[in-house]
């Protein structure tokens, strides 16, 4: 039957038909494969660079290696800021074979609460990258580290890991000056060098930590790693180690700082001590204080609220930002202005009846001594702090000449010490009052400016700086906290560029001598306001007491410390330098609401001189 059909077939025609179709199909296939080749050529040649970079982005990750922050030492090598390891318990999920049992064991070991256990279990479950360590317990105590170490063999995949954090071993002592580091915030994120701070969590927030951020931070390193699709590092391609920050050595003396700190006691206030020859800051205290360590790993809301809302404002750096009327501590500078501008000379006398009035005016400006000093010349005017002498002198000088002269000593200017956020203080002038208050200057305002009251505002660093200029007879050196730096791995200290030096245009050495002599008289004279601190000194020191009114006392009203609120007590001030003829040490003391400068502030200065010069306590 089959043969019947085949007999009818034209095999030649059929094979030609199929072969034509085969040729057609071959051509069609040729076209399809040409399209594929064109597509491949576009991907692999034309767009090769594009896909290459996509491929690298897929796999290559740059891991920053954060540099170790430079340490901070005092002048004698006492550590003020260091990096200490904190220990944490880390668990690598994929390495733990018996998760349930391990967690139970850890819970027993560390006496974890049920809530803590539950939270850890949640975290373990959520962890996507099973090979990355999960921190299950923060800040282990040394005891906990020891307990775990003994039991470590029981916990596969669990280990203690260390991390360095900033620590201030001196605690509150250098809270304002050295400052502290904290987590980088959004605002800082704007200006920092993003590249160098990859991997860095902390940045200097205040004090030296902030000012010298650039030196302390160091140079970031990096590790170029190849990742697979889960983000696990497969190999390291290239690495550049980080460079630790510079260690800093300060002029500050931890022992002296401690003395100043203790001497202020419960008072609020500030002390700044300088080495007048170098401008180096030997001590800088602001009270009340706080513990800078609180800020390092994020201060709790409660602790912060406590510091922020305290009416004593412990976070406020009084040494650089506290505005105080200089009171009588301004008198030596006004006296020097009088001498230099020829308004007075050493021997010229003024009669002090206990008060001063401007010609044709009723108002009486009182001297602190109710019945007056009688005839006073320069030496007594300073040593006994006669107000009337300076009312008279100020009136004769006029406010603009006083302002111009005080400007030379840095009043109303930043001292430019190497600690951030210093404020300018205020040394008033006619121009200042017109510009800022839109008022004319009244002659009466000149009178009280002569004794450092009225608009005058100084900061403790300013006061110390001005005293140093006076002590050095016109050689002006910018105060500086940091003495030297040391590069990582090196022994040699490298001094920081020397502070800016200027010499004031006062050439008559007799004028310097006269003022300094009268300041010596403050401490060593029989009627000097600070004579009680002048005993048992192997050298002469110079000083000036000051008492700054916090609020005005009405005409003829007696200031009675017992009757007024402590907050309204006078501020006690004292400036001093020693030895008087070859000064090595300058100090400015401000004790808020301390009362009189001679009673409260002067003894603090003496304690510091004793410490600095290694004298036994004066009895």
């Amino acid at each position, binding site marked *: 039957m089959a043969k019947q059909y085949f007999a009818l077939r034209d095999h030649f025609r059929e094979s030609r038909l*199929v072969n034509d179709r085969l040729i057609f199909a071959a051509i069609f296939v040729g076209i399809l494969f040409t399209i594929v080749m064109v597509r491949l050529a576009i991907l692999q040649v034309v767009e090769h660079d594009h896909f290459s970079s996509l491929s690298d982005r897929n796999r290559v990750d740059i891991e920053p290696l954060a540099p170790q922050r430079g340490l901070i030492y005092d002048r004698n090598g006492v550590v003020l800021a260091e990096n200490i390891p904190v220990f944490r318990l880390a668990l690598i999920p994929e390495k733990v074979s018996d998760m349930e049992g391990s967690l139970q064991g850890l819970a027993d070991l560390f006496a974890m609460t049920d809530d803590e256990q539950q939270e850890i279990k949640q975290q373990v479950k959520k962890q996507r990258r099973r090979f990355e360590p999960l921190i299950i317990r923060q800040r282990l105590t040394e005891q906990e580290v020891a307990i775990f170490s003994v039991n470590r063999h029981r916990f596969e995949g669990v280990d203690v890991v260390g991390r360095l954090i900033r620590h201030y071993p001196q605690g509150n002592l250098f809270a304002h000056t050295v400052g502290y580091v904290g987590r980088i915030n959004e605002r800082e994120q704007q200006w920092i060098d993003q590249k160098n701070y990859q991997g860095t969590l902390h940045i200097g927030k205040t004090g030296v930590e902030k000012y010298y951020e650039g030196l302390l931070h160091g140079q970031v390193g990096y590790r170029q790693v190849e990742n697979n699709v889960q983000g696990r590092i497969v190999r390291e391609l290239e690495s550049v180690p980080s460079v630790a920050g510079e260690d800093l050595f300060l002029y500050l003396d931890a022992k002296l700082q401690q003395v100043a700190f203790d001497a202020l006691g419960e008072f609020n206030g500030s002390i700044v001590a300088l080495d007048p020859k170098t401008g180096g800051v030997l001590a800088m205290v602001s009270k009340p204080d706080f513990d800078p360590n609180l800020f390092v790993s994020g201060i709790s809301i409660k602790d912060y609220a406590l510091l922020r809302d305290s009416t004593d404002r412990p976070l406020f750096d009084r040494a650089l930002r506290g505005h105080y009327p200089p009171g009588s501590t301004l008198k030596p500078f006004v006296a020097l202005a009088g001498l230099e501008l020829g308004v007075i000379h050493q021997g010229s006398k003024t009669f002090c009846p206990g008060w001063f009035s401007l010609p044709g005016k009723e108002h009486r400006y009182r001297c602190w001594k109710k019945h007056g000093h009688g005839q006073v010349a320069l030496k007594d005017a300073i040593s006994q702090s006669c107000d009337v002498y300076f009312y008279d002198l100020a009136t004769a000088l006029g406010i603009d000449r006083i302002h111009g002269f005080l400007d030379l000593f840095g009043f109303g200017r930043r001292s430019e010490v190497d600690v951030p956020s210093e404020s300018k203080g205020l040394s008033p002038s006619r121009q200042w009052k017109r510009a800022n208050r839109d008022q004319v200057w009244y002659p009466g305002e000149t009178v009280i400016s002569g004794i450092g009251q009225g608009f005058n505002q100084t900061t403790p660093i300013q006061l110390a700086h001005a005293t140093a200029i006076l002590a050095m007879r016109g050689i002006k050196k910018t105060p500086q906290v940091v003495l030297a730096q040391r590069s990582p791995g090196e022994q040699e200290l490298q001094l920081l560029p020397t502070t800016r030096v200027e010499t004031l245009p006062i050439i008559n050495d007799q004028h310097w001598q006269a003022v300094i002599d009268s300041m010596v008289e403050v401490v060593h004279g029989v009627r000097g306001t600070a004579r009680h601190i002048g005993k048992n000194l192997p050298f002469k020191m110079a000083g000036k007491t000051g008492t700054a009114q916090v609020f005005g006392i009405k005409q003829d009203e007696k200031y009675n410390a017992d009757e007024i609120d402590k907050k309204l007590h006078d501020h006690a001030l004292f400036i001093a330098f020693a030895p008087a003829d070859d000064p090595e040490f300058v100090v400015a003391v401000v004790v808020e609401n301390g009362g009189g400068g001679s009673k409260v502030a002067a003894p603090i200065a003496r304690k510091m001189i004793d410490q600095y010069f290694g004298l036994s306590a004066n009895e």
Partner: protein
Amino acid sequence: MSSLINDRQYPQRRSLTKALTLIHIDALLLLGLLTLLAVGLMILYSAGDQDSALLMRQLIRMGTAFIVLFVLAQIHPDRMRDASYWLYGVGLILLIAVLVFGHEGKGAQRWLDLGFFRFQPSELMKLAVPLLVATYLAERPLPPTFIRLLMGLVIIIVPSLLIAKQPDLGTALLIASSGLIVLFLSGIRWRIILGFITVCAAALPVLWYVMHDYQRDRVLTLLNPESDPLGKGYHIIQSKIAIGSGGLFGRGWLEGTQSHLAFLPERSTDFIFAVIAEEFGLIGVALILILFLLLAGRGLFIASQAQTSFARLLAGSISLTFLVYVFVNVGMVTGLLPVVGVPLPLVSYGGTSMVTLLAGFGILMSIHTHRRMMSP
């Protein structure tokens, strides 16, 4: 008995080729296949993260497949023609069985667990469909009548629908195309072909409606892979990155980062072509594609030299379908076609398709080496 005839036809043949012909093996096809399989193993070694156990399994599959090839090459094409109805019938029953008792893997019912080994009936259909269509059409003079054409279509569509329902759209389309190629080669009129294409175009919306969600997603992803880089578009994006970053010369063997760092999914199976492109560059893929074209070209030559219409149709269909596999896979990996899950023939890791493909080449060899001994 055949040596006499062959000697007459090719007096210049070398002895090895002659010896191979005696055992019904075509020397050129064998050479091409061995080259491709060797290259495939080398690439699989790289794509499979240098897993020698994986390589061993693939080698065992190749061995099995070669046995099937050898056995089929010994069978006279006429015996295949005689068996075609039976094979098709058994295949259909198995396909229905899969839908009823099938073993589920990755959300699709494709496997039939026979205890000692798992078997995909759709693989059987890859050969059974073109075999039956060729047998059926060659029963009468070509070109076929319209009625026979429709019958041919029914032979094609029934198993295709069953496979598409598993659901395995890729295989269904490949099986349908292997049957349609036979229809095309049988010389049906161009008018009918154009009409058929028009009907298919009109059927596209209907197809869209019948498709499973994941299949629709794949089509949508193809149109705009970047729209969902972590989800649906991930395969295509990573595959294009691998291919593009290979450049002209490639990163070198075992140096492909996309594949070794596991960014490229399914890199030892469906996306192995991207590994070739990454490691060997445009030159490498061009050589591989030329190797595929040479193999299929030899198959088309065998078809043109075949002595019966049945053999011509079958050989043509096997050769062209082989190229369709390559085209669909490469098109998918390069983002020209949707991700339909078709492996790169003879290179991708995987069992059943290796056996089916080499069985196809066995049939080609049988057709070529049994000439002159076939019934009139």
